[in-house]
């Protein structure tokens, strides 16, 4: 009898609320926030959340996106204040997109990422974006009744297919900040009438936890090559036989640290790219193909150098070139690891680009 009583009592205690079990909450009265924006504000922090378009009933009658905003001293205070603004229970567990305003990035992103990492509902799985030249609240408000989540999801999906900028989750960026001391984050800037449309605006580079600067254009493409994930890029060039278009399909960059004694004397990068001829009037062969390859390698090397120049200036090895190279010399790497940002700014970089062209 005692053998049965004990499990029964334990089960009763566990299930009767004495165990800290989660409490039940009906989904029918939930507002599922999909996008969250954080900016600095005079009060402390300005948090803006949007649900994206909602549906009501079985037939899914459309309802406009619900946008909530609150300025408080802390993130948790702002989130709590947003709860009171809605007639539904505001649920943060579906926040897939996190927008950080440029001003907040300049002040420091660590508190936000800390909060996301500790909060049970939020987590670090959300995609992280920097809003360049505007606040996250402006960007979210400009999304109007449709919200921004559809646009941001499209960018995310395009990135996975290699046709848009690299995306990063809050967790990836936070990990880089903690391990490398710097991170790159895709940037967006409002465009169109009233900033209703978000377009890609390169990458923001965080050093420490503050914004070091933005990489855009050729430098942004160079960063992608260093990170090993080029967005689908078409390079057009003119050959004697006519114009040729080449599509870059993949890239892989290996880094090697050359030491003199225990100090790094050079950082050698080898970037191997795969490319495909997409348009041509006459298929380049022989010398013409070699000429094409040489020209493409020069252009990609310039891109990498453009990105490296900026990154070295900021002392931000945000693609982890040093850490990857250090794996070949773990003992020596331990010696320079602490001061690697300074070394990274000084060490000469040799870049080799090798392109394989498939038809």
């Amino acid at each position, binding site marked *: 009898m005692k053998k049965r009583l004990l*499990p029964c009592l334990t*089960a009763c205690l*566990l*299930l*009767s609320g004495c*165990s800290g*079990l*989660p*409490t*039940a*909450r*009906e*989904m*029918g*009265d*939930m507002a*599922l926030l*999909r996008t969250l924006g954080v900016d600095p504000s005079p009060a402390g922090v300005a948090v803006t959340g949007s649900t994206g378009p*909602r*549906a*009501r*009933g*079985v037939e*899914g009658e459309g309802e406009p996106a619900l946008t909530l905003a609150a300025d408080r001293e802390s993130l948790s205070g702002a989130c709590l204040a947003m709860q009171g603004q809605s007639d539904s229970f505001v*649920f943060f*567990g*579906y926040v*897939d997109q996190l927008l950080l305003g440029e001003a907040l990035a300049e002040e420091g992103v660590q508190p936000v990422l800390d909060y996301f990492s500790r909060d049970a*509902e939020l987590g670090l799985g959300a995609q992280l974006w920097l809003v360049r030249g505007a606040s996250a609240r402006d960007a979210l408000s400009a999304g109007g009744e449709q919200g921004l989540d559809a646009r941001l999801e499209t960018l995310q999906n395009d990135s996975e297919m290699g046709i848009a900028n690299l995306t990063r989750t809050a967790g990836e960026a936070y990990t880089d900040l903690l391990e490398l001391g710097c991170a790159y984050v895709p940037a967006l800037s409002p465009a169109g009438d009233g900033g209703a449309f978000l377009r890609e605006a390169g990458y923001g580079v965080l050093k420490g936890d503050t914004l070091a600067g933005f990489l855009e254009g050729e430098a942004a493409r160079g960063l992608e090559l260093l990170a090993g994930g080029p967005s689908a890029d078409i390079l057009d060039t003119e050959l004697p036989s006519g114009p040729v278009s080449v599509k870059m399909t993949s890239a892989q960059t290996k880094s090697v640290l050359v030491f003199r004694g225990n100090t790094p004397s050079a950082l050698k990068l080898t970037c191997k790219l795969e490319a495909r001829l997409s348009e041509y009037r006459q298929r380049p062969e022989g010398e013409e193909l070699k000429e094409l390859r040489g020209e493409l390698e020069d252009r990609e090397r310039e891109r990498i150098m453009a990105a490296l120049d900026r990154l070295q200036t900021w002392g931000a090895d945000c693609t982890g070139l040093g850490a990857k190279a250090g794996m070949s010399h773990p003992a020596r790497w331990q010696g320079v690891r602490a001061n690697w940002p300074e070394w990274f700014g000084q060490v000469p970089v040799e870049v080799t680009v090798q392109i394989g062209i498939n038809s």
Partner: protein
Amino acid sequence: MSKQASDAPHPRREPRIPGPLSLARLEEVFSDCVDFAKREVYLHGDSHRKATVCYIDGQARSERLNDYVLRPLAQDPMLATAPESELFDLMERGALYAHGAKRETEPDPVVFALINGSCALFLEGRDDCLVFPVATEEKRSVGEPENEPALKGARDSFVESLRTNTSLVRRRMRAPELKIREHIVGRQSLTPVDVLWLDGIADPDTVALLSKRLDAIDIDGVEAAGNLEEYLVDAAKFPFPLMPYTQRPDRFCQGLLEGRVGLFADGIPLGWLLPGTIDQFFKTGQDRAYHWLVASALSLIRWLCALITLLVPGLYIALVTFHPEAIPPKLALSIVAAKQEVPFSTIFEVLIMLLSFEVIQEAGLRLPGPIGATVSILGGLVVGNAAVDAHIVSPAVLIAVAIAGVAGYTMPSQDFGNALRLWRFLLTILASLGGLTGLSLGCAALIYHLAGLESFGVPYLAPFTTGTRVPRGHPSLLRLPLPRMKWRDGPIQTQNRRNQR
């Protein structure tokens, strides 16, 4: 009444019919029995030599009685001329044409022989009688197994007649090692119950244990399968069945070949196979008929369906009410949209739908076939659709409950499916109390419970828990190619593990 008094064996009178055997005693025993009949016959017309034949009308076949017993009595001149002291010997040894004849001196065997369809012949001035089997063989003919339809294989099934069932087995298992031992169970029903096993393959301890338990059963009658199942297994108070059964002789024989012990009861058209382990309830008679890849895939699907029918309602409640973040966003948005106009809580919705599902199923089973189908369609489609349209339940709940219900129908064993239905309710309630934690606790309790069950000394989860010391025969989830299934399962303690070259 004290506990000791209620536990005491209720007295059994031995012999059942006391006193000497006589025609008068027999008539006394069968007084107020309208079907008891007797016929007086002069042997070859000799009025000085009178025989009395007793039988039970309806139990004895009149043609046999007339042709094999009464006609020789009335027409054989030898019976009129032979000395009276030799009459019984002559009749016993062939003067009467019945295929058996037995001399009895006690009332008990004569009474039971009459009930079983024999006739008893008394001669004046003697205190014994001759019993001739002239039983009628009216019974349901061998038909198709309705609960275990065969698409590729034998189409016969067991019937209510015990001897027909043993004959169906004997026709397939021609080896003389097939042993059949009979026990009589039930004070009033006196039901013959047969134990079948293959000598040299089945575990003799299991046979002995089964025989011992059968002998220990002291009930009034065996009218339903439960009259045996609930007395033979150790854990009859729990819903999971421990005695797998089949209607199909081919599957029954396969069980005997695997080293299991078979059990038949007269009047119950199925055969049990012991000991019962959990994998037996997922096997069908068709598993060995299909290609091994197809059979393996179907077996995996059945196991998956068991999990689905058990867990889906509880999982739905746990996810929707406790852990919504675990639901994919688009599905969550759809659930939120559909749930907004439903006035009831998700827990209430699921429990009510589960209950409704059971009600509709029960109504469909109880009504005659065509009406039952109509009720099922009305209940399932019309009421379900109307409930969604009226915002009484959300479509996701309907889908979850329907998937769980339909998945339950894939269980080859109805008993096992019923146990899963009961546990589904329990797990749903636990999930509604504690979300995934409650559901996990319930699953742990289920595994603990199953791990504690035994069937005739063999662990219920033996296919998965025998460890390294007991050799396995073959995987339980998959059906290997038959040439590779060379070994009988170790846990059932078969005497000869190798089943092929």
